[in-house]
């Protein structure tokens, strides 16, 4: 399995689409605060962190979708997976090597995308008072769980469909449908699905809504409420791990017993 991971890494590093995706997401996140009218003078580390966290709710599932379908799905159409089977690797090794790679590239990418601009702006402008750094870090840590879960969903989808392009389209449609369904249920029936759906779970962790106005250093500033409810944190971790494991198991069962195209 380690050889497959190394070989896939060799390939991914040469995949322009992956790097274009990262660069695009990075530029989007970097420019986003300024699109809402914030000036460089007003910006600080905590302010930037709060603004981009909400956008990551949207970007993270889509970025992971592109990465996962490229890693797991493209190798079906050009028979990379076939040749791994022919080389004597077991189906378990082939499948879980791709799962590990999808998780690593997704999580690493998102962490770097989120942290790097925050670090740069904090170094240049200071942290500020908009949000508590420790609480935000804790939220950031627990955000990894729904991201892991979402990656597992994309892995399952890609191994069912066996094609990167189709999986990407279906994944996007699935994402949109789930968002709409959750919204309809919430608005029409007053039902909340904070952790049942990975996307709403992600939103609950990343979108900070409650705030208060504080007078600091001669000016009014918004201070966001960043403390995370322990119940939300625990449920997030538990549900994400269980749901993720179920998706991976289903994906493996399908891969294990199917003829290669």
């Amino acid at each position, binding site marked *: 399995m380690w050889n497959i991971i190394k070989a896939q890494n060799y390939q991914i590093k040469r995949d322009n689409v992956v790097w274009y995706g990262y660069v695009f997401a990075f530029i989007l996140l970097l420019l986003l605060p300024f699109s809402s009218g914030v000036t460089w003078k007003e910006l600080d580390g905590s302010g930037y962190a709060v603004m981009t966290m909400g956008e990551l709710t949207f970007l993270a599932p889509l970025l992971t979708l592109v990465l996962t379908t490229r890693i797991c799905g493209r190798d079906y159409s*050009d028979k990379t997976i076939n040749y791994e089977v022919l*080389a*004597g690797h077991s189906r378990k090794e082939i499948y879980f090597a791709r799962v590990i790679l999808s998780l690593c590239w997704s999580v690493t990418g998102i962490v770097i995308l989120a942290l790097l601009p925050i670090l740069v702006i904090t170094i240049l402008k200071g942290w500020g008072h908009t949000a508590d750094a420790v609480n935000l870090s804790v939220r950031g840590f627990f955000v990894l769980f729904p991201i892991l879960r979402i990656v597992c969903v994309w892995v399952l989808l890609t191994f069912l469909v066996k094609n990167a392009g189709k999986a990407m389209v279906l994944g996007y449609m699935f994402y949109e449908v789930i968002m709409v369904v959750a919204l309809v249920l919430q608005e029409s029936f007053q039902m909340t699905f904070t952790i049942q759906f990975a996307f709403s779970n992600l939103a609950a962790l990343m979108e900070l809504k409650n705030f208060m106005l504080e007078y600091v250093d001669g000016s009014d500033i918004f201070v966001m409420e960043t403390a995370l409810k322990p119940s939300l944190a625990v449920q997030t971790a538990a549900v994400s791990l269980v749901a993720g494991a179920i998706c991976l198991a289903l994906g493996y069962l399908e891969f294990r017993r199917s003829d290669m195209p």
Partner: protein
Amino acid sequence: MGNTVIEVKKLEKQYGKQKVVQDLSFRIEEGMICGLIGPNGAGKTTIMKMLGGLVLPTGGEMELFGGSTEKELAKARSRISFMIETPYAKEKMTARENLEKQRIQKGIPDKKRVDEVLKLVGLEHTGKKFVKNFSLGMRQRLGIANALLSKPEIMILDEPTNGLDPEGIVEIRELLLKLNRQEHITILISSHILSELSLLCTDYLFLQRGRLLQAVSEVELRKLCKEYFHIHTDQDALAVTVLQEKLGIKEIEVEEDGSIRLYEQLDNIREISRTLYEQGVIPLELRVCEANLEQYYMDMAGEQNVEHH
């Protein structure tokens, strides 16, 4: 020849109600170059895919290097190289990058091996050219290079000369012969171009509609395909004695029905007829027969069609 390296027993593959491979049993021994012969749809590629683990059999058993469990088969496959259908290649990578990736994936520590196999197949000068710009022949060569990367003990090749020019076909044939003779690599090769296989193979497996028609060695096949006189007389036993003693014919076979096959003096039909007649043997049937490999297969496949119908 030596130990059995591949053995299948009553192997079967069924899709829905259709059996694409059925009741297939054969054995390949170390050192063979075995040709898998059959028309399109005979099941050649499916058999190779089952040996490779790409397609799961629906019946029968399979052994590679004596192992038959899933784990043993996977381990055995690391000693075998496959080239099945369209050769593998990442389109937006160069030949060298593709092979380097395969080298890493197969766990081959020697980095120089990539250059060695590129040179072996004549792709050492492709430089930064992406595979998407390769011709079919170049892609085939890359597939063969990939198959040679791990220095396998067995090579399983599905129409490896497909798309190659005549010079390329000769080069690949000579390369395979060299690998078999010098490196003792066992080869299972499929093709529907029988003339090409006849220059290469030591053994043949003839397939039709997923069934094995016949397994025969090259020596036996040459005998079967050789030009000969077919003679049937009113006293076949006496005819054999006459031919041996009076004409000194040594290469002579008697078939099950008593008729005679002569493999020499084929331009001496008048003398043969005259001698038989003088000794009181009346030739009832006397004809020259010739079968090349294609004709042999067509005749055999035709007979089987009649039987099955």
